[in-house]
């Protein structure tokens, strides 16, 4: 078994898997059951001056038969009394001294921050997380993302927290900004010990077409909410990676956003997260998903010859380059495995209508490009009559084929192919060495 334990700005955790500050970490009883199931830590549901929630509060995107690929909520911070929360946090930490317990906080005035930080410390918690992320309700009251969107304010409040707190301070960032580096750098300047991101993305989850109002419906109306779940993972990965590769970000990152299984978690770790946090996947399937995360990460590390999770953290960061530094001479082409192909021709139509017309069909009329291979560089002003090809594979005319000279190696066909590993992208060796756009510019070619 690989060593999954982490040291996150001094906070020790038996593994990198934490509950995000959200309903799964709403009360002590829940967090304790989560720890029993295997979670290494939990960021408590945000505490502040308790609020009143609405009903309903959640919405979801189902896509092509998959439930909850995206999730949205209009709930606020905790609606439970602070006393109850603090008592539970104290008990939880006492019963689970080796697990990471972090208290998420959101208040307004400097005095409120001082008081609530003091009370949080008294619980024995390992750290506090400043929630500068909530994109609905709280921001209208000058908290949450309204702080996260103002680097100067964020820096100031972070500095207050550092002044009052003797335990590590995590700053949770909102994705609802132009450049994540602005609040990230501000947090570092304010003295933060770590960053967590992303909080939810500002969203409207859908429209009720019968009542002609928004979802999730509160009577006859609704409000914008926060979007999360599998659909936001790429946004979160980008923001985590952007921070991880920036030399000004010298503090550890807790990655959040759409993590559902060990693979998602491993990707965040490789892109520079030291811990990961999960909300939606637990809301969908329960704490038990952590079993697959632990075992899957362990197996992966073993297969890759890594003995500890720390060897994975940040390993993919050097691969995150500016576009201008990418090698323009690198070339791949699509390869269709005729044995695996089931003949759905999704690759054909995708390439034909959505890419570069270089996949051909032998089944019916073929509308792919039949002129000289030119990667579309010359004007194409006519719709050429389709051609008919003699099937290359007599009993499988539905198996399409790739005109390699015309293929620009975009991946589209491989992405739409429903059969695992049926279309692979093969590298075409070339004589020319690597050459990037920035090289072109430097050489005065661009």
């Amino acid at each position, binding site marked *: 078994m690989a060593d999954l334990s982490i040291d996150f700005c001094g906070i020790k955790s038996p593994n990198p898997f934490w509950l995000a500050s959200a309903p799964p970490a709403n009360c002590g009883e829940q967090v304790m059951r989560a720890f029993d199931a295997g979670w290494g830590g939990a960021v408590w549901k945000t505490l502040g001056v308790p609020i009143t929630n609405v009903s309903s509060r959640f919405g979801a995107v189902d896509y092509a038969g998959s439930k909850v690929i995206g999730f949205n909520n209009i709930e606020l911070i905790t609606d439970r009394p602070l006393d109850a929360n603090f008592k539970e946090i104290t008990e939880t930490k006492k019963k689970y001294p080796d697990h990471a317990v972090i208290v998420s906080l959101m208040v307004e005035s400097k005095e409120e921050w001082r008081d609530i930080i003091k009370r949080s410390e008294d619980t024995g918690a390992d750290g506090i997380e400043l929630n500068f992320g909530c994109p609905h309700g709280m921001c209208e009251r000058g908290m949450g993302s309204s702080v996260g969107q103002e680097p100067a304010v964020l820096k100031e409040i972070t500095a207050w927290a550092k002044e009052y707190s003797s335990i590590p301070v995590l700053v949770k960032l909102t994705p609802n900004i132009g450049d994540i580096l602005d609040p990230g750098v501000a947090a570092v300047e304010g003295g933060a010990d770590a960053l967590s991101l992303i909080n939810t993305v500002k969203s409207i989850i859908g429209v009720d077409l019968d009542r002609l109002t928004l979802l999730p419906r509160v009577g006859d109306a609704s409000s914008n909410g926060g979007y999360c779940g599998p659909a936001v993972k790429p946004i979160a990965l980008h923001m985590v990676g952007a921070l991880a590769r920036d030399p000004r970000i010298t503090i550890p990152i807790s990655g959040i956003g759409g993590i559902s*299984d*060990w*693979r998602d978690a491993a990707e965040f770790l490789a892109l520079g997260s030291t811990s990961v946090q999960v909300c939606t996947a637990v809301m969908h*399937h*329960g704490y*038990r*998903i952590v*079993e*697959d995360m632990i*075992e*899957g990460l362990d*197996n992966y590390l*073993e297969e890759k010859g890594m003995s500890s999770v720390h060897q994975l953290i940040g390993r993919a960061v050097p691969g995150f380059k500016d576009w201008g530094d990418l090698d323009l001479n690198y070339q791949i082409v699509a390869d269709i495995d005729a044995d*695996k192909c089931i003949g759905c021709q999704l690759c054909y139509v995708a390439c034909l209508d959505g890419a570069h017309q270089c996949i051909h069909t032998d089944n019916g009329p073929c509308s792919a490009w039949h002129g000289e291979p030119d990667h579309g560089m010359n004007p194409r002003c006519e719709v050429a009559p389709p051609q008919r090809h003699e099937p290359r594979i007599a009993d499988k005319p539905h198996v399409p084929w790739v005109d390699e000279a015309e293929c620009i190696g975009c991946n589209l066909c491989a992405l739409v192919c*429903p*059969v*695992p*590993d049926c279309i692979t992208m093969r590298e075409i060796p070339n004589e020319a060495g690597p050459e990037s756009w920035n090289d072109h510019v430097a050489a005065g070619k661009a």
Partner: protein
Amino acid sequence: MTAKFHETLGADRLESKFPDAKPLYTESEAYYEANRCLFCYDAPCISACPTGIDVPGFIRKIATGNIKASARTIFEANMLGTSCSRVCPVEVLCAGACVFNDLNGEPIHIGRLQRYATEKALFDEAETGRKLFEPKPDTGKKVALIGAGPASLACAAYLALEGVKPTIFERGKLPGGLNTTGVAPYKLHAESSLDEVSWLLSHGVDLKTEVEVGKDVTADQLRRDYDAVFVGIGMGDDRLLSFGNENNPYVLGATALIEAIKNDAGFQLPPGVKTAVIVGGGNTAIDIARQLAGLGVEDVSMIYRRTAAEMSGYKHEMDYARKEGVTLVENARPVKVHQEEDRVLGLRVASTVTDQETEIACDLIVMAVGQESRVHALGLDIEVNDRGHVVVDLETMRTGREGVWAGGDCINGGKEVVNAAADGREAALDMLRSWGLQPRKWRYSPSV
């Protein structure tokens, strides 16, 4: 070990004429099927599995590409998870309970996913040498297990992984019990059963074949030499009702015939057989009927003393049999073999309703009306019930006799491999507890 077993088995067996009814999934098949599972909580498929495998858990791990952990999840509950994935009557077990039966009538193919995970993981283990399970340090305890069928094999594997030294005594040439000699070849060939046995033994289990307890060594000797004894001897020979059929080469016992089809190199059906009558309405009767039909016997019928609805054979199996041309004669009992010299010409049957007699012309009769108990031959003084099944406490698998545990067909009269696997596990864990040893936390749901 595997090579040696395969050599003993020999080639050119009739069972190789039967291809896999449910072949190993490809990666895509597994991917799509696994992603169809809803990952239900406290899922009905779990409680319908006699070994209580965390079915949603192992399926989700297939979906995330976590095959090794998926296989571990299966084996922790059921060490015979590989063969069970192929021989379990899933229609009446896990898949029969799947929530999709109520959603769109397409239950998850749990057995096939289980096969995918276990076979893939064992293949990977063989390739990389990275074992799924490592045994605990030696505890100094030794256990003798009688019979190398699924019950003993499961028991022995758990014991070995818990640091106990198990030795299995098997009267036959090959281990695996009915998995090797009895289950239908379109589900599992003997080779695959033996591969599974080799894997189970590889955790530190000793096997002594061609040693019959009660004959070559006494059970009491084993009780003296070992810290515990596990009785996993299954059931005995086919019961042959007496109606003038004794010693006729065209009147055969079903399990004996199946064993010949599966294991005997060069075995052929008696020459000239075109019409066969099977006596019995259980799964063994259906199995041999399907096998005979598959081997080209033109006219195969089963006679059963009551109606189809009352048969103990599964409906889904009987449906397959019918599709393959087997006919069922209900409310009929055998009266007399109509024979000339050694040859069978027909079977006289009487209606159990009207007592009226008729004759079914046939040239082969197969008796599938159950198996005898073989417990008495052990010479071990343990309590049996009126049908000769060993009496145990079902929580602990203990017999009334100090230091003797039992499980599998010999206690239940013949259920499924998965029941034997569950019994073996429970006995192993109870032995450990009886010695004050704390077994590791094997993940499974207690049977209900």
